[in-house]
């Protein structure tokens, strides 16, 4: 049986954190938030990549997604975004 058509809900998580906050706990909380989004039935979560600003501490959405995937079952996880000019394709 297929599910009825419905609007999908996703979250773009700009990785903002208070400067001076414990980064270990901040990233742990971000992962926990994705677990809640999965539990609550959100369809997608997008994780961004930033380097220079102290309040945006996720520099690799790929690594974050690898960990988040192990803690979730249904939610889709997107790189929002990978900055291509600083990578090798």
């Amino acid at each position: 049986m297929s599910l009825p058509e419905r609007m999908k809900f996703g979250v773009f998580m700009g990785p903002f954190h208070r400067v001076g906050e414990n980064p270990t706990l901040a990233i742990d909380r971000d992962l926990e938030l994705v677990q809640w989004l999965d539990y609550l039935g959100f369809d997608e979560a997008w994780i961004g990549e930033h380097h220079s600003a102290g309040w945006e501490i996720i520099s690799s959405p790929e690594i974050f997604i690898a960990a988040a995937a192990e803690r979730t079952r249904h939610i889709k996880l997107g790189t929002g975004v990978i900055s291509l000019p600083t990578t090798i394709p």
Partner: protein
Amino acid sequence: MVANWMVQLDHMTHGRVMMGVGPGALPSDAYMMGIDHTVQRPRMDEALGVILRLFTETEPITYKSDWF
């Protein structure tokens, strides 16, 4: 490497990963990386072209670039 990472994540997440790419939003990121912010957009376009070829073509590809 981006293409490889996404393929690996595709396996590890059982198809739950979505790839989004961009030129980089923060001028401070470009400054920190030593990249002129005016080349970010053409570089993204060039890199995405190669990534899409890696995803879709069945033969190994060769590509010459002045930055990767």
